[in-house]
């Protein structure tokens, strides 16, 4: 059984981290080859594990393979260390290791001129990969949380990779340092929620093992209010990690790191952890319909607002960052709407509703995988462009299509995919997401909220297509502007080959639906009434064709997408429509709102400044005067006492003998008092 060796998957990258971290300077490319080999080994083992799991009997019943050993015991409760392999874990391990491997290969070229810093880079990205793979393979929440925090640490280190000695000067270095701090602190707010959620869940269930906490009988037996609180707090963790509203502000700033790190954070690791957490905790969240509604609302709102922010940004990486937020919003919308339908179906016993809910889950997971491919591709393409012209400002690019053929074509594929152009990967999952939202709109008391969210989703689809093609046209079409003229052409093979591989997946990964692989990542109650991811046959090509192409709303989104692409063409390629007319040359209220991220950073700053600084000053006063005063007084007393006692130790044997006898007599006196007090004598 190879499945039993799944712990090797996270272990190999962490070994690479240790080896590269200590000996990277003595290796080729600062240990880059070793990191790539490690990611490749993890990928190969992931394939072996997944294939064996999916063909084994355990796949259909009970739907997972798990094993664990006791890590330590706390007051009669065992905390375990183990693995839990199911379809979801397999999928995450597969795409995380595969895309990371490609990003590492790409890094050989992109970070090629970084000299001695490559050791640090390759060590840290390997550790980052460990975080994601370990998260996927963990068998309980505490173990998962360890890896979750490991990713938080790595994101801090990597976003701040250039926080000293930035190639472009000190201002950028300070920017990188503050972006890293922001990412760490904002996600930490979510992490605290998640930790609280784990405690509450532990209180409710008495364990944090997946097999226990996601067991239907245990869930039904637990106090629903406690579960509600636990679900909300755990989702708070996902909001932080996946940068959803209102903790979304760190992700655009995180662009201060190297572009490859952005690709890693956005495609393979970090932000996907939040989606994974919600998908993993789906059986828990579905216990309460309001939780799922909340998930959906957060997702839909984030999808819409993040898309508006991308509309007028001039920084190629920031546009992609906003689009990640927006796409993650889609995933949460899908999981929320699916969960809402599932919860309704469970209450009324309606299997059709439950099937519709399962479709939402499938769509969310598929969108996560699709997004991993096309967003990884888009970031790497943007990295290739930045590498070539040395700027991130799209106003200084243009006309690069001729100089960088491979990059422009692969980026086009990525853009079509994320825009949801028919038959590209993004099309399938995005339309299923919208369909689920619309489905949810027709059911239950809160259906009208989902109608609103569906509407936001459709508008987001339009905006996505628009800003992606705005980006593509501004970068690759038209006349070469300043930096584009100085560009030194296509990037090296180590960078273009990963682009080609990723573009194949960005185009074709959606077809897994048509070949019936969707059965692998749907969720449902199995014959024993237990939750199970996968384990059923796929619905097949005919089903999905009928599902999508008999639905008039599918055509609506297709028309919107085509319209948006055409509009972007007119504005930024043919220039027959002047964007200035719409935004009053940058003076329109809406334009300013989008450009300044709907003033979210200002709101944060105001709140944290006024509230945080006030509290901090009070605490500071208390700390300096009361605590420090006490501590200093105590420590002076302790050190003084130590000096005194040291002097008593004069080195004379007769003093020592005296102390022994004196001590015995004193002890005798104490004993006497004690015996008298307690009535022993």
């Amino acid at each position, binding site marked *: 059984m190879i499945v039993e060796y799944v712990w090797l998957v996270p272990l190999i990258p962490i070994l690479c981290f240790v080896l590269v971290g200590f000996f990277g300077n003595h290796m080729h490319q600062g240990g880059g080859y070793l990191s790539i080999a490690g990611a490749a080994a993890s990928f190969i083992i992931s394939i072996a594990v997944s294939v064996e799991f999916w063909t084994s009997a355990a796949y259909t019943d009970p739907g997972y393979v798990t094993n664990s050993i006791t890590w330590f015991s706390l007051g009669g409760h065992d905390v375990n260390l183990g693995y839990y392999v199911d379809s979801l874990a397999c999928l995450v391990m597969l795409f995380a290791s595969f895309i990371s491997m490609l990003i590492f290969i790409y890094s050989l070229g992109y970070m090629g001129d970084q000299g001695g810093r490559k050791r640090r880079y390759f060590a840290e990205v390997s550790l980052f990969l460990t975080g994601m793979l370990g998260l996927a393979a963990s068998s309980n929440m505490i173990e998962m949380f360890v890896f979750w925090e490991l990713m938080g640490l790595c994101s801090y280190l990597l976003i701040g990779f250039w926080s000293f000695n930035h190639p472009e000067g000190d201002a950028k270095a300070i920017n990188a340092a503050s972006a890293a701090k922001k990412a760490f602190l904002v996600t930490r707010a979510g992490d605290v929620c998640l930790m609280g959620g784990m405690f509450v869940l532990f209180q409710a269930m008495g364990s944090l093992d997946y097999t226990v906490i996601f067991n239907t009988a245990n869930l039904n037996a637990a106090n629903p209010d406690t579960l509600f609180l636990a679900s909300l707090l755990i989702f708070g963790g996902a909001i932080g990690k996946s940068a959803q509203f209102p903790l979304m502000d760190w992700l655009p700033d995180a662009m201060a790191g190297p572009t490859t790190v952005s690709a890693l954070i956005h495609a393979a690791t970090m932000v996907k952890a939040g989606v994974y957490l919600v998908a993993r905790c789906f059986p828990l969240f579905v216990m309460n319909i309001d939780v799922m509604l909340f998930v959906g609302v957060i997702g839909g709102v984030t999808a819409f607002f993040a898309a508006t922010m991308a509309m007028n940004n001039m920084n190629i990486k920031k546009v992609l960052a906003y689009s990640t937020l927006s796409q993650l919003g889609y995933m949460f919308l899908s999981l929320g709407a699916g969960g809402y339908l599932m919860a309704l179906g469970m209450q009324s016993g309606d299997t059709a509703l439950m099937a519709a809910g399962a479709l939402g889950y499938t769509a969310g997971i598929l969108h996560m995988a699709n997004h991993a491919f096309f967003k990884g591709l888009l970031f790497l393409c943007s990295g290739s462009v930045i590498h070539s012209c040395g700027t991130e400002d799209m106003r200084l690019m243009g006309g690069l299509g001729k100089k960088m053929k491979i990059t422009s074509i692969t980026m086009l594929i990525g853009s079509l995919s994320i825009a949801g152009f028919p038959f590209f990967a993004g099309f399938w999952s995005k339309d299923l997401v919208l369909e689920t939202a619309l489905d949810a709109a027709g059911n239950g008391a809160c259906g009208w909220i989902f109608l609103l969210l569906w509407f936001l989703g459709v508008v987001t689809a339009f905006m996505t297509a628009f800003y992606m093609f705005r980006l593509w046209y501004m970068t690759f079409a038209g006349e070469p502007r300043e930096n584009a003229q100085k560009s030194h052409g296509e990037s090296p093979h180590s960078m273009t080959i990963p682009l080609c591989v990723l573009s194949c997946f960005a185009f074709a990964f959606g077809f897994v639906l048509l070949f019936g692989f969707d059965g692998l990542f749907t969720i449902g109650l199995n014959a024993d009434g237990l939750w199970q991811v996968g384990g059923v046959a796929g619905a097949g090509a005919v089903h999905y064709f009928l599902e999508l192409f008999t639905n008039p709303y599918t055509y609506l989104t297709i028309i919107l997408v085509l319209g948006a692409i055409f509009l972007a063409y007119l504005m930024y390629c043919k220039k027959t429509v002047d964007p200035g007319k719409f935004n009053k040359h940058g003076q329109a209220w809406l334009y300013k709102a989008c450009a300044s991220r709907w003033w979210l950073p200002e709101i944060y700053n105001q709140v944290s400044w006024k509230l945080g600084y006030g509290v901090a000053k009070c605490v500071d006063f208390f700390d300096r005067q009361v605590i420090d005063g006490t501590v200093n007084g105590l420590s002076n007393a*302790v050190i003084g006492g130590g000096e005194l006692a*040291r002097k008593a*130790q004069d080195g004379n044997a007769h003093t*020592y*003998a005296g102390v022994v006898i004196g001590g015995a007599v004193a*002890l005798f006196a104490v004993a006497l008092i*004690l*015996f008298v007090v307690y009535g022993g*004598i």
Partner: protein
Amino acid sequence: MDASIVTGIFGAYTPIAPMIIMIIGALIMPALYFGFKKKAPVTAVQMIIILISLALNMILLGTGYEATYANLFTYDAFSGLLILLFQIVVGIVAFVSYSSIETTTLHFGAYSSLLLIAAAGMMFVGAADDLISIFVGVETVSISSYALVAMKRNDPRAAEAAVKYVIIGGLSTALTIYGISMLYGVTGTVELSELGVALAASGYSWAFIIALITMMAGYGFKVAMVPFHMWAPDVYEGASTPVSIMLATGSKKMGLAVFFKIFLVMLVTANVVGGLGIVEVQYLFAIVAALSMTIGNVVAISQTNIKRMLAYSSIAQAGYILIAMAVMSQYALSAGLFHMFTHVFMKGGAFLVVGALICAGLGEKITDYNGLAKRAPLVAFAMLLFLFSLAGVPPLAGFTSKFFLFSSAIYSEDGVMTQWIWLAFVAILNSAISLYYYVRIIKAMYIEKPAAGADSKLKIPKTFAIAIAVCVVFVIVLGLYPGIIMDYCAQGAAALFGLI
């Protein structure tokens, strides 16, 4: 594997088989050194002897062997665990004695022999069944360690330390034997298992209190608990570092084992069988524990010699383990036993680093450690781990064992808060104080610049490097996965409580 492999050879002597091997080794050591005139072969044979003894013990411990020899010595999970502890200590000490420049060359045969005799004495105490065999075992260790302390090359401090050690040791022995005779007078028995029942029958008396205090004083000398600790810093400083390790990690644990075997069993039995209130004795031990940790830690702050600092820190660590004597529960005992094990690796490891650096030509002053991270990065890192572990920084072994120990003082097994929570509080405060002087060394190693002209790389002997590496591994592994030893400690504690 079952115990028949051992019982087949040793027959009725099986319970003392590991000690027999040690004694045989002790007898051939001087002859070997006389023949070879070199340290290496003697140490090689010595290590083989220790490994055979260790292997025998592991077989017996692993198979859950239990038997009694001549109503004097019993082998069970508890004594097996203590024997294992002493074997580990003597293994480390013997291994590094070979290459330490501090150990005697002239008398190396006698030195090796005494080391094994001391080990056998400690192991006999671990298995002892009555007061007399405990007394004899302790004296075996005392007398051989007096000589071991004196056996140091070219250092007058050693002779002074040995004299002090003999004088205070003799006084303590006198107190002990007086206490034993009083206890015999009160209870009419020397059998450990019968003391409790007899005490329950007779109740407390003046004579018992005198016996209790004098025996606490006598064995407290071995433990180096306050106020019977004064000798420890002088002796640890004066003795060669391997012998300091033996005293700090071996003979100290023997004293604690004696406390467990005599007082813990006696009082808990009296409490369970005769309903005798034992809270007054518990308080007595709690006060001694609190005093030991506080005085040990506070005085350690103002030390400038690293061996003296570690000696005071050992006094404090003994105070932590004495929590088990105050709480007197099975869980506290297993936590205390576990801390005895982790202490071997972290305190032993710290002393090993000191010894290794003495061999590399570095002094014992804390200022000599300035800039060590540049001169010997791996050793400095190991020292950092040991010191952090001693201070109780997670995820190292010292954290885990302190966690078990302190939590045993807070909650009893059935989840009720105990009255010893103040003791846990004192212990935690003390851990914070101890961090101060541990971090001072780390600061010296990592932040201070080396003194002018002393910035060359340091080369330490191989045996020290290996022993330090072993300690590092255990300090990390026992922190992350305490189960490998803690399970045995729980069994040992259960075995001791099984007597009740």
